């Protein structure tokens, strides 16, 4: 049985905005990535799962309980990190954590303390005075401190510096190992690719496709940019990879290839004199175009 279930979930805000006919089933212990550009409907879906929105049609369920109406039971097992974190302005982080813990009926604060140390944050200052990243850390502590069985994370690493992003991924790994079911939304391909088992791609409120992360990891084209010293090198590369885009004046090459051909590239480059070589990061949009062609803009 799936832990998180969406059945034809629809919420129309008018003007083509909202979510339409979204169906997902996340199994126990699975980490599901919800990937989509800004305004795609990721947060709207999360809000249905939190019981903030009533579905227009369709259903959102967690462990078989209806998310609209059975909140009290569902929230006992869920940790939620909102996409747009907001805290009461007139409290310190510490007193807010205490208050939420009390509302959860939590008695043992040892794990909460551990998380504070792990993220190197001292919550004993006013929430109003905290930086974006500090607020995000408090949000993470609030959603993880009761060791929930289910995590709903809406763009969890926004505002964290790269070091903390890595720490956060470590933390998610720990929870995954403990069998936690995770639904994670993001517009960053790398983040989802690194942590999730399955990825659902949503755009303009519609699910475009669901893919296995492993499959994606290997099938995906990577794009490299390089610059050579000599023109002969350019020709050598073109000989092996006719699809490469070369610029004869700057001697630069842009080349996209699947992982399966990476060794061919290295073999060719071994004989070349390069000025530099780097992998180009793609925007989500470009990834969509790569995989699904015009599909992504439907």
């Amino acid at each position, binding site marked *: 049985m799936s832990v998180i279930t969406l059945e034809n979930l629809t919420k129309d805000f008018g003007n083509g905005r909202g979510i339409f006919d979204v169906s997902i089933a996340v199994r126990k212990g699975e980490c599901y990535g919800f990937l989509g550009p800004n305004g795609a409907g990721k947060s709207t879906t999360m809000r249905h799962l939190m019981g903030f929105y*009533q579905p227009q049609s369709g259903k959102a369920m967690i462990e078989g309980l209806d998310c609209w109406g059975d909140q009290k039971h569902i929230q006992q097992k869920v940790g*939620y990190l909102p996409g747009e974190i907001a805290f*009461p302005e007139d*409290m310190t982080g510490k007193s807010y954590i205490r208050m939420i813990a009390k509302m959860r009926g939590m008695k043992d604060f040892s794990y909460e303390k551990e998380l504070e140390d792990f993220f190197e944050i001292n919550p004993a200052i006013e929430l109003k005075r905290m930086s974006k990243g500090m607020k995000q850390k408090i949000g993470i502590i609030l959603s993880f401190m009761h060791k929930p069985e289910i995590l709903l994370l809406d763009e969890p690493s926004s505002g964290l510096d790269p070091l903390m992003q890595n720490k956060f991924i470590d933390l998610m790994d720990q929870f995954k190992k403990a069998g936690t079911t995770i639904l994670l939304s993001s517009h960053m391909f790398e983040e989802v690719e690194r942590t999730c088992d399955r990825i659902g791609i949503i755009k303009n409120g519609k699910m475009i496709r669901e893919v296995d992360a492993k499959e994606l990891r290997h099938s995906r084209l990577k794009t490299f940019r390089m610059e050579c010293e000599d023109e002969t090198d350019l020709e050598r590369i073109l000989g092996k990879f006719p699809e490469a885009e070369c610029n004869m004046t700057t001697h630069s090459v842009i080349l996209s290839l699947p992982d399966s051909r990476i060794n061919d590239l290295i073999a060719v480059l071994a004989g070349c004199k390069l000025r530099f070589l780097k992998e180009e990061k793609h925007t989500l949009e470009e990834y969509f175009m790569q995989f699904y062609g015009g599909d992504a803009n439907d």
Partner: protein
Amino acid sequence: MISLPILIQDIKSNFKFWMAFTMVLCLFMTVMINVFTPATIGSLGAATNGTIVGNLLGGTSTLIGFMANSFYTLMAIIFPMLYSIIVGNRLVAEKVDHGDMSGLLSTPTKRITIVMTKAIYFICSLVLMWTVVCLLGIGVSHIFQQDELDLNTFLLMNAGCLLFHLAISSICYAASCIFNYSKLSMALGGGITLFFYVVSMIVKLSDDLDVLKYLTLNTLYDTAKIIEGEGYGANFIILTCIGILLYTVGITVFCKKDLPL
């Protein structure tokens, strides 16, 4: 049905408003009781007879009459009203608008528990405010106006004022529960209650404008009837019913609506 942590947070976060408005009321109560002297009011009454000021002041030869026409038509109406407008909005709408309501709803607490707790805070804070003001009034008149105060009428006057403000607070609370935007909740809650106040002032200016009294809730807090000692019962009951009704409406709407958190 109530959540202690939420109640405590509401008390803490609204304490400065409660304190400020209670102190202002206490201050005016003390000053007005002190100002009263049967003789000066008598001559003032004669001088202003038939004028607009006379209409506004009318029947001020006793302490309670004087208070009814000064403190209980002006300060006792406007200050708690402002408290209700500000705090009513802060309790719910501002938390939805700002987004920190999502933190409360992420815990295993039902929506109804959250809004019930906040309603209870709101009601109790007003009851406490009037208890303090009323006790102070009794104390101060005992010191400065010995034997001038008709205690029964004074208690009724305050009870009526409290019921009136509970009805006002119910308007602000319902607005706060209905709207997701702080400014809309303020506009409706504040707009309606201040409109009532302004109309009630206009009604006092001339008998020709008497029909307007049906447009304002303030009519139901009729100090003259309380002093007469009869005919106020129905008003008290209507005020209570309005309060119960609007609190219920607010709570029900909040439990059923979409929250853009």
